């Protein structure tokens, strides 16, 4: 069947969820609230998976620190949500968030300035991950650090950020992070209508990011990235400045991850340093590997299927999840090098 048609049907099926949620609770087609928020989360994960796939599947940059870019995007929008609480906090301070009052801050730190504007916070959700990727990527790619060494450096990066964000005097709420959000863009959070708006915003973003990545991989840049992935030094001898190409895709990928994080946090209502934990980044790589790296559909499919499995398994047998995750990775590596998508395509042909 036509691939594009299948994709459109999938998007339509997802888009129908909040609409069915709006039906009265006793209606047979009613979709419960939790399903809308859970699928909304998965959509954000799928955007993160696309970001990882763009860097790993196409350019061969296996980042095990993309969770950090995701978390930074989340923190940027979280700072805005904290500023919007205003005097409604427990301590009722007109400007300072609760945790700052508690820690004895007298005024807002300079790096919190500007976050009362949504546009600024949104911009920072892209710029901060992008800048971090630029610095880390520049240092690594310039020194021709590739493969497992790059993966280890990115792991260290997200781990270091986690430790830093755990510290109270960083000014980001320490290990409690941010929560108790009240509203976003004038919409009170925790209402069905806002949930639907955030869901659709995420879905539209997923479609746009997918379309953008699909377009990018069809250009000559996409072919250069494939060339770098398969034979980096050969590409260099062709006269391509490999460092610049890798940096370009790494920064772009980090910004997409930041965008995913920014959409995620208002939906889950909390962001704390555990989002930086190295395990999160590895899990996201497993989604892509499971779905099929190097294909955009595979990345999205992987994010949805692994997280669906996780949601189900952590409710019926929570202790098993990490074991299953590990097994999934082993099985995919040994038996399904092209992931679920590879399996489906083999069946199809």
């Amino acid at each position, binding site marked *: 069947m036509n691939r594009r048609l299948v994709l459109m049907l999938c998007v339509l099926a997802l888009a129908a969820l909040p609409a069915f949620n709006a039906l009265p609770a006793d209606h047979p087609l009613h979709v419960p609230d939790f399903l809308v928020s859970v699928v909304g989360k998965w959509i954000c994960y799928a955007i993160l998976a696309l970001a990882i796939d763009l860097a790993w599947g196409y350019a061969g940059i296996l980042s095990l620190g993309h969770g950090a870019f995701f978390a930074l995007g989340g923190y940027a929008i979280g700072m805005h949500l904290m500023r919007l609480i205003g005097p409604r906090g427990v301590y009722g301070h007109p400007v300072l968030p609760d945790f700052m009052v508690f820690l004895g801050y007298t005024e807002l730190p300079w790096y919190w300035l500007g976050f009362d504007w949504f546009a600024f916070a949104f911009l920072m959700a892209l710029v901060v991950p992008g800048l971090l990727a630029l610095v880390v990527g520049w240092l690594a790619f310039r020194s021709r650090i590739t493969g497992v060494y790059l993966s280890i450096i990115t792991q260290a990066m997200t781990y270091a950020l986690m430790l830093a964000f755990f510290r109270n005097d960083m000014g980001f709420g320490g290990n409690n992070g941010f929560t108790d959000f009240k509203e976003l863009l004038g919409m009170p959070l925790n209402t069905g209508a806002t949930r639907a708006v955030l869901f659709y915003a995420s879905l539209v973003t997923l479609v746009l990011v997918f379309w953008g990545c699909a377009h990018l991989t069809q*250009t*000559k*840049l996409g*072919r250069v990235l494939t*060339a770098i992935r*398969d034979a980096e030094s050969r590409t260099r001898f062709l006269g391509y400045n490999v460092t610049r*190409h890798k940096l370009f*895709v790494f920064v772009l990928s980090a910004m997409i991850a930041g965008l995913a994080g920014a959409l995620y946090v208002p939906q889950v209502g909390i962001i704390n340093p555990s989002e930086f934990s190295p395990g999160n980044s590895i899990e996201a790589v497993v989604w892509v590997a499971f779905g099929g790296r190097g294909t955009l559909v595979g990345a999205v499919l992987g994010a949805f299927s692994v997280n669906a499995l996780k949601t189900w398994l952590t409710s019926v047998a929570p202790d098993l999840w990490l074991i299953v995750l590990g097994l999934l990775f082993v099985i995919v590596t040994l038996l399904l090098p092209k992931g679920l998508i590879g399996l489906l395509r083999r069946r199809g042909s």
Partner: protein
Amino acid sequence: MTSQGLYVDGVTVTFDGFRALNNLSLLVEPGELRAVIGPNGAGKTTMMDVITGKTRPDTGIVRFAARDLTKLDEAAIATLGIGRKFQKPTVFDALTVFENLELALKAPRGPIACLRWVLSGVARARIEATMEQIGLAARREDLAGLLSHGQRQWLEIGMLLMQEPELLLVDEPVAGMTDHETEQTAALLRGIAGTRSVVVVEHDLEFVRALDCRVTVLHEGSVLSEGSITHVQADPRVIEVYLGR
């Protein structure tokens, strides 16, 4: 010294005390076809590495078109008009013959330029012409990974030609080729020289004879003998270290 062509003078490269190149000097004229032969470890590949910027010489001068190559990195040297064909064919297996040549085509190389790249009619014609020249026109939409060994070598030579190099370095092009493929490769390289300099590093003396050009014999990192194939084959020092074995 000359301002054109390739000029290598007094180049020494040491790896952990081992002298891979020892006061090597070499002059290749514009448009010249030159074969470089020598036993294993004679420094042939290191010489290529030095010219393409992969290895930095300890001492000595490497110039091409009046530019000091020892100060430039690989990408800059490639842009300057020096193309290198590696011993192992390294075409991009996941791309088609056409796409491989397109990537090699002389065009702006930056990420943004690649993102906005549109294939012009002129560029397409050049790719078509090169596919004819290397005999792969019929395989244009095939993935490079599906080509035979000889075809991959030709594709790689084609990729070098797309960069319109003034100097082409070719490392053991006929290793593993059938006799017929070897003949075709010699003809291809003879056809390429003339408009540009070509340096071929090779073991196969039959092939070198078919190239019908000036030959440089390397031994222990420096030039042992230079001249026509008949001349070097008659040189007693060459016979002793290389041909006589």
